[in-house]
């Protein structure tokens, strides 16, 4: 059982983390060159018009006023309106419409990474120095070494262009249309934007299969790196555990290899792997930026890149803070998971 004090302590640590990220983003944006007002009105606009836009956006206020205003708004998850990327629309709306795409990609990729990485790592450890181990090692090293911007186009070429097995460039079949709401006990609720979840909520198995099929290539692209790291970590952790005295005792008492490994070894070997999975989630969110671009899926990563090049301060601040919040929450979940797996960690 995870103690309440431990959870509260971890939750309180979110405050300085988010405050720190907010300060960093604010500072970096204001130290970088480029005038958002000039970008909004265009390069040929008269200086008076630029000045009027600067005044209306509050960019003429002293920096400490802008900083205070930004922190107060950010605490309420309010980042104002987009200057350029989605001009005039609230940043919150931009985030809520684009974020599900990135989350979906990262989660699907993570699922592939976990489902392949853990069994491969265990197998590699149990059959140490065998052909299986060597092949897994080569696969893992390749997965870690190949960058997404290279593996993505290669997978598209092979599986989409030549073999025609998987489509590339959309999240669901073009003939499938989903409504905006779903019904729960007669009450209409909005959909999440995560197609894999929405299709299940709507009870549309055909649409779900289409989404799984369409999202497979981008998710594999992003998940291979995760899979490689998880399998390597699982292998080394498992090797360490199966050499422990309690494993030898279990074997000496006549317990079979499978039960010894899966019942006694797996839980203890899993603790460092859980940490890697949590940290990997941040990398996957970063990787989603590249994957979205390669596969032409419009998620929050693509929006962030656009916003940075357009000096769209509110969008950059909103997205980076949302990323930070999500990453810290995932790591909080990881902390709680391994304190559950090994209660001594809470001490």
């Amino acid at each position: 059982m995870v103690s309440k004090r431990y959870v509260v302590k971890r939750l309180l640590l979110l405050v300085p983390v988010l405050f720190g990220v907010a300060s960093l983003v604010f500072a970096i944006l204001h130290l970088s060159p480029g005038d958002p007002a000039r970008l909004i009105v265009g390069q040929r606009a008269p200086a008076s018009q630029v000045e009027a836009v600067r005044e209306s956006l509050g960019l003429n206020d002293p920096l400490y006023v802008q900083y205070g205003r930004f922190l107060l708004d950010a605490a309420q998850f309010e980042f104002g309106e987009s200057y350029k990327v989605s001009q005039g629309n609230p940043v919150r709306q931009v985030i809520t419409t684009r974020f599900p795409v990135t989350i979906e990609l990262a989660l699907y990729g993570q699922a592939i990474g976990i489902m392949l990485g853990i069994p491969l790592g265990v197998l590699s450890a149990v059959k140490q120095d065998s052909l299986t181990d060597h092949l897994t090692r080569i696969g893992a090293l390749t997965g870690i070494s190949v960058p997404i911007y290279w593996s993505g186009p290669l997978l598209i070429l092979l599986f989409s262009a030549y073999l025609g097995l998987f489509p590339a460039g959309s999240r669901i079949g073009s003939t499938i249309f989903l409504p905006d709401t779903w019904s729960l006990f007669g009450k209409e609720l909005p959909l999440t934007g995560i197609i894999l979840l929405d299709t299940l909520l709507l009870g549309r198995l055909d649409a779900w299969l289409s989404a799984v099929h369409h999202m497979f290539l981008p998710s594999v692209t992003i998940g291979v790196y995760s899979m490689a790291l998880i399998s390597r970590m699982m292998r080394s952790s498992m090797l360490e555990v199966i050499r422990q005295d309690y494993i030898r005792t279990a074997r000496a008492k006549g317990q079979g290899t499978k039960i010894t490994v899966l019942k006694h070894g797996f839980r203890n070997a899993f603790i460092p792997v859980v940490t890697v999975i949590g940290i990997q989630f941040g990398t996957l969110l970063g990787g989603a930026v590249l994957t979205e671009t390669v596969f032409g899926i419009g998620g929050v990563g693509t929006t962030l890149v656009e916003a940075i090049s357009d000096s769209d301060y509110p969008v950059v601040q909103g997205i980076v803070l949302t990323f930070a919040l999500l990453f810290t929450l995932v790591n909080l979940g990881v902390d709680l998971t391994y304190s559950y797996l090994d209660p001594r960690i809470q001490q």
Partner: protein
Amino acid sequence: MRRVRLVVDALAVGGGVAALAIAALVVTGTTPTRATELAFAIGALALGIGLLGWSGSVMAGRGIETMQNHLDTNTDWTEAKSRRAMARVGGFGGGLMLTSAIVEVLASGP
């Protein structure tokens, strides 16, 4: 008490550096507004790094210490030392921000 003093000392150093930096920038031809803005933004950068480093040390410091001992790669890095260093960096940034805001108010009014 020692912890408060550590942060206050860093704030004072940051404040002094901010005053000198703003003066130097103004002397070299930068407008006072731009000089204070620059000092404030650099202060916010240091504050952000300090806060993130401090919370990172609190969250993962003990784990890193244990890992170093476990892997026998001890570099004398400790969670406590890291926390103190990051508190100094954050305090320094806070000092820069505070002084540049005060200079801005004095120069052009609130």
